[in-house]
């Protein structure tokens, strides 16, 4: 079981870090630029760019946006790998041996996804850094202003809120695609269809739970 969990951590988390960092850096950059371009009123302080970047990245982009991407990347991997095992009777083979296949296949994925918040923490850091780079490169505000904005009115509870969301999303990303793979029927073509359906449902559930959690935790 331990080696299975390590394999899943490698597959689900480490193999996703590249895309997560890539997306975070550019999204952070875009948030900074858009905020800057909308600050036409000279009365508004320039440190708002840093402030807005931090808030958007930490509250929304790092946890939610990354999770939608992961629902596609990790989710389709989970559905297709489990679904392939279903259609090629590998799951039946497990059951015949007396292995609890559902447990054997899904549990390691849920455990591996417990490490997902670390990936989101990296996305937060890199996203803010991307905002900083874009801000400096575009000459929108000084480095000092941006950093001052980053530190302004910091509410630690926002971090807690973000990580609660992330943990819930991690669970959703591990379970919904597993469910679609495990209980699918048919052949190879249906594996593809199951992956698509799983992605749609995973994103829908993430979006809705994001709304509910935000209302519950911040409202």
């Amino acid at each position, binding site marked *: 079981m331990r080696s299975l969990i390590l394999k899943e951590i490698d597959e689900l988390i480490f193999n996703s870090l590249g895309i997560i960092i890539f997306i975070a850096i550019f999204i952070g950059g875009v948030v900074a630029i858009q905020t800057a371009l909308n600050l036409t009123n000279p009365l508004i302080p320039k440190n708002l760019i840093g402030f807005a970047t931090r808030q958007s990245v930490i509250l929304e982009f790092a946890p939610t946006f990354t999770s939608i991407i992961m629902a596609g990347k990790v989710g389709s991997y989970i559905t297709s790998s489990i679904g392939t095992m279903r259609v090629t009777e590998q799951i039946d*083979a497990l059951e015949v*041996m*007396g292995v609890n296949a559902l447990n054997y296949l899904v549990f390691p994925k849920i455990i591996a996804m417990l490490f997902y918040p670390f990936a989101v923490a990296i996305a937060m850091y890199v996203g803010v850094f991307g905002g900083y780079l874009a801000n400096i490169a575009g000459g929108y505000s000084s480095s000092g202003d941006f950093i001052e904005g980053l530190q302004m009115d910091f509410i630690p509870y926002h971090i807690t809120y973000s990580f609660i969301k992330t943990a819930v999303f991690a669970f959703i990303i591990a379970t919904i695609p597993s469910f679609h793979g495990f209980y699918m029927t048919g052949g190879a073509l249906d594996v593809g269809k199951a992956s698509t359906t799983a992605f749609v449902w995973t994103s829908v559930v993430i979006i809705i739970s994001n709304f509910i959690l935000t209302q519950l935790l911040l409202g």
Partner: protein
Amino acid sequence: MIEVNNLHKSFGKTHVLKGITTSFEKGKTNLIIGQSGSGKTVFIKCLLGLLNPEEGTISYEGKIYSKLSGDERRDLRQEMGMVFQGSALFDSLTVEGNVMFPLEMFTKQSYAEMKERVDFVLNRVNLVDAHDRYPAEISGGMQKRVAIARAIVMNPKYLFCDEPNSGLDPKTAILIDNLIQEITQEYQITTVINTHDMNSVMEIGEKIVFLKNGKKEWEGSNKEIFKTDNKAVTNFVYSSELFKKVRQMYIEERN
């Protein structure tokens, strides 16, 4: 000994198995034959407990499967080996990993002990140099042999094979048939094999159950099947030109 009594299985409105009663003895190769779609795979999956029949009973050494507790079922399953129609090897494991898997899951043997057992069974199925290859990297016939090795690695009391030699050349097919029969006799396994291969019927058909449209149409041994007058059986057995000619010659010889 496996006894099946009045087994019924449907999927929605399609009634696949319509009241099958038969029994399979220990140390014998029992064959289920019948056309594609006659319900062979569904039947064997009911025996394994992968499908739940709506009606009828299956008993192992007199114990009715559906009345076993969860723990008893798990124990029974560890005494079963199954070779699936498509081999069903674990893609992510090597040949050795596949065969070692049940040992890792259910025994407390050391790696050296497991390795010894794996080498032994792989040897038994004449696969000696494929240990580190993945299922995708070996031929269909080799996959079948790995599947057989995996099915017998735990010394099962019951061995089920769903078309173990379909898609293989006649020589390899016979090799696999003989292998299954040898193992069955050597370890006194209750073996049930699905097939529509007439060679297998002749070679290893100690007991044959002929299914037609989900019903048991005929049962007997390979000695009896070539003599029976049952129309459905002769139609099936002599559907190939080769066998028709053989029968023709047999009849001419007699006259």
